[in-house]
């Protein structure tokens, strides 16, 4: 039942990503809220279960994607792999500034990925991508962590 709520939240965010989020463009860019949500879940919830949520989110985005099949899933798997091997030891109840840095690093990696696949000039849009993605990601993380604390206090 708990996992079903997460999958439904992911689906909701996917629908928002293709209909509402494009109107939140800043300097020609808007963030991927689905990825930011999934990273929040990765940090706050079970790291092992998160791979299934990531792949589900990626699959749902592929259905709306105008790129080759696997564009988003590959992106998500690469980020998960990086988190698993490099960032995971530092993500146990991290302070907020560390979460912000994590999102900033993720934004840079996404920019690199997009520049390789889309042949886009990554450096010209780097500041916008990093700032916008980090702030949006932090807002989602903050909301999710508050919800989690509320759930824990209700159970207690």
């Amino acid at each position, binding site marked *: 039942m708990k996992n079903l709520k997460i999958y439904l939240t992911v689906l909701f965010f996917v629908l928002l990503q*293709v*209909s509402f989020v494009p*109107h939140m463009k800043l300097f020609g860019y808007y963030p991927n809220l689905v990825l930011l949500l999934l990273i929040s879940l990765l940090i706050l919830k079970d790291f092992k279960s998160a791979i299934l949520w990531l792949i589900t989110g990626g699959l749902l985005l592929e259905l709306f994607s105008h*790129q080759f099949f696997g564009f988003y899933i590959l992106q998500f798997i690469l980020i998960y792999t990086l988190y698993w091997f490099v960032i995971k030891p530092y993500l146990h109840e991290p302070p907020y500034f560390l979460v912000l840095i994590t999102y900033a690093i993720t934004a840079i990696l996404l920019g690199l990925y997009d520049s390789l696949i889309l042949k886009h000039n990554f450096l*010209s849009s780097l500041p916008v991508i990093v700032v916008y993605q980090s702030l949006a990601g932090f807002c989602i993380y903050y909301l999710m962590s508050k919800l989690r604390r509320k759930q824990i206090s209700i159970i207690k």
Partner: protein
Amino acid sequence: MRNKRLLVIIILFLIIGALINPFGLLKPIKNYTNVITSPITGEIYQTTIAVENFFHTLFSLGNLIKENNSSKGEIAKLKSDNIKLNEMKFENNLLREELKFSQSTRFQLIASNIISKSPDGLINSVTINKGSKDGIKKDQAVISQGFLVGRIGNVYKQSSEVSLITSNISKVPAYLQDSRGTGIVRGGLKGLSLEDIPLDVMPKKNEAILTSDIGNILPSGIPIGNVDEVSLTQNDLSHSAKIKSPISFSHLEMIFVIKQ
């Protein structure tokens, strides 16, 4: 253990999906996804534009009053010009009748609504609610208010993807209306620009830019925009100039596909 098994199944499914995608076997799945979700995504998209327009109007009321006052003089002049144009139209019709020209509209248009946008912020493309069953084909031109906005990409049975000209990867052959110089219109984060203009051609400010039929991709003569800020960066082979389009690409609602 159960999770690992599920993971292996999903990864196998993804590999199969990636292998069969080039053969277009995933198209029906994408088509039905667009059809099922379009009532929700289309409604959210259109409602958000309406809300944005409301706030935009609210915040620009002061400017609207000033513009209204300055427009009154222009309206009087336009009324007089309109009378002269009606006279010319009458003469034109008479001449056509004399020479027996057939009056036919140049393009057949298919009206369509935008139901969703690409999930990625850097890829400027939208999905529309018309597909192959409505006569949509790949590479057909897409216009809004008479100006070029994009080209049809992937086509499904009941929906299609439109790659906008503001996209980073968009390239549209075009020409300058007065100086007749050719070039390529490219998109990107900095906006539209006309590049690869021959060195012996000098674009003028506000000069119209239209599509060229070089490569037989798009019909010739579709307006794209006007030259804005003639900042000529000279390399060994060509010039480039920024383009101003009257179309607000982030507020597109209804667009028209040119049925060639």
